[in-house]
């Protein structure tokens, strides 16, 4: 049992306005933890925030186009505070996606994003509660979580396993469910819709321990 995580007092969370429809839900989840999230596309606000969350539902090409349009690709590169990508936002952290005929992504984490393979009887989109398998139990983002717990996923593309992989899930193929490298973190599932499992992951992200080397 690890100690309960508390958000950094007064932590300012910038929620990058990437145009997805899950933004209100992510903001509500942050508020339920006692912090405040402001929805923003303002570079100064993002650069001065204590935490940055990149949400996102939709397609990779549209997500990248929106970040470029807002001039946020460079801004996200310069952010020194911890960054958390959620769902598509997590996928955007990688190098390349085969979605939409091939899209170059932010490239903050090594690895590629692929479509869930077609397997008879395997439903795509992968939609629902699936099991987490923790590979790096010491990662601060996974404090208090354990293998066998379920989180809520909705997606058709997956990030391959790689050095940034902290936890995996299997749906036809084993893929990265939680990733991170010290500054940049991500969850393929929706923590804002994953009940206590998701709340714990978000609390970990808001906690000072996220910046400590495991």
């Amino acid at each position, binding site marked *: 049992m690890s100690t*309960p995580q508390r958000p950094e007092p007064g932590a300012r969370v910038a929620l990058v306005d990437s145009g997805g*429809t899950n933004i209100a839900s992510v903001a*509500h989840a942050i508020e339920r933890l006692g912090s405040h999230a402001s929805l923003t596309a303002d570079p100064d606000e993002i650069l001065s925030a204590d935490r940055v969350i990149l949400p996102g539902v939709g397609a990779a090409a549209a997500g990248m186009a929106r970040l470029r349009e807002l001039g946020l690709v460079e801004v996200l590169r310069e952010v020194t505070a911890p960054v958390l990508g959620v769902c598509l936002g997590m996928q955007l952290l990688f190098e390349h996606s085969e979605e939409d005929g091939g899209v170059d992504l932010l490239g903050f984490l090594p690895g590629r994003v692929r479509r869930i393979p077609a397997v008879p009887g*395997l439903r795509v989109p992968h939609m629902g509660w*699936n099991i987490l398998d923790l590979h790096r139990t010491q990662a601060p983002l996974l404090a208090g979580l354990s293998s066998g717990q379920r989180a809520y996923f909705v997606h*058709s593309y997956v990030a391959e396993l790689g050095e940034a992989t902290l936890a995996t899930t299997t*749906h*036809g193929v084993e893929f990265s469910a939680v990733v991170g490298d010290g500054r940049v973190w991500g969850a393929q599932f*929706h923590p804002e819709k*994953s009940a206590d499992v998701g709340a714990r992951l978000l609390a970990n992200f808001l906690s000072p321990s996220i910046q400590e080397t495991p």
Partner: protein
Amino acid sequence: MTANPTSRLAKRIIPCLDVQDGRVVKGTQFRNHVDMGDIVDLATRYRAEGADELVFYDITASPDGRGPDIEWVRRVARTLDIPFCVAGGITSGETAREVLHAGADKVSVNTPATQRPELVTELAEAFGVQCVVVGVDSLRDPDGIWRIRQFTGRPDATKALEVTTLDWVQRVQDLGAGEIVLNCMGSDGVRAGYDLEQLSAVREICRVPLVASGGAGEIEHFVDVFREADVDAALAASVFHSGHVPIGQLKDRLAEAGIEVRRPDHEGVTK
């Protein structure tokens, strides 16, 4: 049918709540509605019991010719940390956008899709197929063929269509439905079990998640529908509202029967 060995995705249990003026109501045929309580209180109760997802059906939106009431969608979204779907009165991309931006995860369309099938494509293109649920009200005709119905919210207005249920399910998938809720009207309200024959037939041609609706009366009915019809989720209302089927007990039984389910009380999350 066996579960896919390459995924341990949980079969979902989905209580459906009928909403009128921000309250959850119970009743039939738009008459004698009984107030069941505040929408947020009931949503919170089901979440605590281990529901995987909730459906809120704004029962007067469509008859009143309006979209769903955004005020309660926002209230639910602030509190609820599991996914939820809003049904009733979604007739355009604009109404869907309002509901999704207010914090709903999915919108469900039923009669409007039968009137204007392109709506399904418009929603899928604007928000992604994962947000688009198509509700299908289906009944077996005297010739033995399942066909769809529209305007089922009002028995006096319900209309039978020519299109067969199997053709319609195929068509809405091609148009962009990300999930199908098959409401088997012949078993609805009877509590004698889900329509396994019809659900199995639809399963054969349904490549997106399929939700069984109509007929749940006992815990064993849920075991049967997951085992026999290989559906991805089971939806019910009255058996959950009355407490006749407690969700915790239901999931324990499903797990015992070898069906993958989420049991948050067994997962031991450290808060």
